[in-house]
C-alpha cells in the first residue's frame, strides 16, 4: 500500500502558502520522518495528507487513487492517525478507548462485538500494555497514553500509520519505547510516518525524511541525505554536529545542536 502526496499546496489565508508543491510518499514497511522548525506546517501537512484539510492544489493518493474518490470509512481502514496526546480528553478506560478505534468499521447502530474486543486485547498485548486495560485514560502517564493512542489506531487494522509528534513531551525511556514500537510496526509491514522535533530520531529510525521550512520549501529523500549538517543549518538555522557513537549495543547516529546561527543564514 502506498500513500502519496502529489504537488500538494495549502495555506490558511489566501496567498500565504504554508505548504508549496509538496511531493512525498509513504509505503508499507517503511518509516518516514517529517522534520521542520515550529510553524513550518508539520501538523498541517498530516491533516492535509489525510484529507481533514483540503489541498488547494494537488492531492493525496492511496495506491494511485485520489483519496477524494475513496469513501472515508474505507480510507481509514487502510490508514490510521494518531493525534498528539493530550491528557484529560478521554473519559474512558483503556480498553474502551482502543475499541473506539473499531467504530469506523462498525455499522452505525452497532456496538463492538466479541471479535472487536478480542482484536483490541490482541493489540494491547502486542504493545505490551495489557495490564492497563481496565485503567481510566485520565490516570495514565504520558508514555502510557501515547501507547494507548497507538493501540487505538492499530485497532483499525491499518497498513499505514500517521503519527503526530508521538514522542514529544515524553521522558528518555518512554521516547525509546514509542520509537521501538514504531520500528516493530515496520517489521510487521506497517508503514509509519511521524512528525518529530528530533533530527536524531529521524536518523536512527526513518528510511526517508521530509524536511520542511516555514517558507514552504522542502526536501524529501533518503534520511541520511536529508538530515545533514548542511541542511540543519539552512532549515533550522542551527549549527549541529552529526556523529557516529560506538556503544555496547552497536553504532548509533546522534545529532548534537551546537549553536544558533545569525538570522541571514536561514532561508
Amino acid at each position: 500500500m502506498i500513500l502519496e502526496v502529489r504537488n500538494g499546496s495549502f495555506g490558511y489565508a489566501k496567498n500565504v502558502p504554508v505548504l508549496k508543491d509538496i511531493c512525498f510518499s509513504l509505503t508499507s514497511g517503511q518509516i518516514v520522518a517529517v522534520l521542520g522548525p515550529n510553524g513550518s506546517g508539520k501538523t498541517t501537512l498530516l491533516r492535509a495528507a489525510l484529507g481533514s484539510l483540503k489541498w488547494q492544489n494537488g492531492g493525496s493518493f492511496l495506491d494511485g487513487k485520489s483519496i477524494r474518490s475513496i469513501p472515508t470509512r474505507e480510507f481509514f481502514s487502510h490508514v490510521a492517525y494518531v493525534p498528539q496526546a493530550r491528557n484529560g480528553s478521554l473519559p474512558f478506560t483503556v480498553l474502551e478507548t482502543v475499541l473506539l478505534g473499531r467504530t469506523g468499521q462498525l455499522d452505525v447502530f452497532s456496538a463492538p462485538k466479541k471479535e472487536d474486543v478480542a482484536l483490541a486485547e490482541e493489540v494491547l498485548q502486542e504493545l505490551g500494555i495489557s495490564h492497563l486495560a481496565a485503567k481510566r485514560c485520565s490516570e495514565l502517564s504520558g508514555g502510557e497514553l501515547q501507547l494507548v493512542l497507538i493501540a487505538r489506531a492499530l485497532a483499525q487494522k491499518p497498513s499505514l500509520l500517521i503519527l503526530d509528534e508521538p514522542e514529544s513531551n515524553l521522558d528518555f525511556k518512554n521516547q525509546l519505547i514509542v520509537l521501538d514500537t514504531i520500528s516493530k510496526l515496520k517489521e510487521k509491514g506497517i508503514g509509519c510516518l511521524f512528525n518529530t522535533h528530533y533530527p536524531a530520531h529521524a536518523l536512527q529510525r526513518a528510511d526517508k525524511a521530509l524536511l520542511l521550512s516555514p517558507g514552504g520549501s522542502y526536501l524529501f529523500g533518503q534520511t541520511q541525505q536529508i538530515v545533514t549538517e548542511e541542511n540543519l543549518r539552512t532549515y533550522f538555522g542551527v549549527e549541529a554536529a552529526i556523529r557516529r557513537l560506538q556503544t555496547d549495543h552497536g553504532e548509533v547516529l546522534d545529532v548534537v545542536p551546537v549553536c544558533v546561527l545569525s538570522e541571514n543564514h536561514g532561508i
Partner: protein
Amino acid sequence: MKLTTKVGRLPAYWHIILTLLPLAAGLVCLAIGEYPVSVRDILISVRDKLTGQQTLPTFTEAAIWKIRMPEILMALIVGAGLSAAGCAFQSLFANPLATPDTVGVASGASFGAALAILLGAGMVMRQAISLVMGLAAVLLTWLASAKKRRSISTIVLAGIMIGSLFNALVTLVKYAADPENQLPAITYWLMGNLKGASYRSLLFGAPPVIFGLVVLYLLRWRMNLLPLSEDESYASGVSIRALRFITVLLATLITAACVSMCGQVGWVGLLIPHMCRMLFGSNHLSVLPASVGLGAFFMVLVDTLARCCFLPVSVLTAIVGAPFFILLMRKGRGWQL
C-alpha cells in the same frame, strides 16, 4: 467497585433492574394521591380491563385510568426523555454543565407555549406551537453559530444568545397577557407541571420522545465519539459532523416534546446523567440506558411526591435534586467528561 463489564456494557441484571424499577414505581405510585387506592385495587382494575368486567366503583376506576395513569405515563416518558437528552448534550459539549437549554430548546419551547396561551389556542395547538418553537430555536442557534466553521464554543455562545432572546420574548408575552386569566396560566405552565396530563396530550407529545430515545439508544456506542476533539474523531473514519447534527436534532426533539407537554422541568436532565456517570463511567453503552431508566424512576417518584404536597413538580426536582446531587458529588470521586 465496578458496575459495568470490561467493555463498559451494563450486565444483564442491571438492564432488568433499570426496566423494572420505573415500572414498579409507576404501579405503586398509581395508588398514591389525594384519593387513596390500594395496590390490590389497581391489580383488580387491570384484570377488569383485560376481562371487560367492572367490579370496582366507577370513581376508583376513573382515578386510576383517567387521572393518574396518564400522569404517570407522562412522568415516565418525560423523565426518561429529559435525562437522555441531558446525557447527549453533556457529551456533545464535553461539559458537565450542559443542559437542553444550552442550545436554547427549552426557552424556545416555553415561548411557543406562552404565545399559544396568549392567543387562546387549545391544548394540542399549544403543544404543536411549543414543539415547533423549540426546534426553531435550535435551528437559529445552529445557523447563528457559524458562517464557515462551526465549533462547540460557537454553538454554546450562539445558544446562550438565542436562549436569552427567547426568554425576553416570553417576558414580552407575559407583559402583553391579560393579568386576570392568561398571565397566571402562563406562569403556572412555565413552572413545569404534569397535572394536566391526558391521553390526548400524550398522543401528540410521546411519539417524538420515544422516537428520539430509540434512535439515541441505537447510536449509543457511536455517541462515545462526541466528547473527542475534532482531530481525534476525524481519524476514526466516522463523520463527526453528521453525528453531532443528528444528536442535537434528536436531543432537541425530545426536549421540545417534553417541554411542550409539561413545561420546564429542570434538574432531571442535569442530575440523572451525572449520577449515572458517577456510577457507571462515561461509556454510553451503560450511561444512556441507565439515564433512561433512572430518569423515568426519579420523575415518577418526584411527581408523586409533588402530587401529595400540591406543589409544581419542578420545584420539587430542585428541592430533592440539589441536596442529593451535592451529597453524591462530595461522597464520590467526582465525575469525568
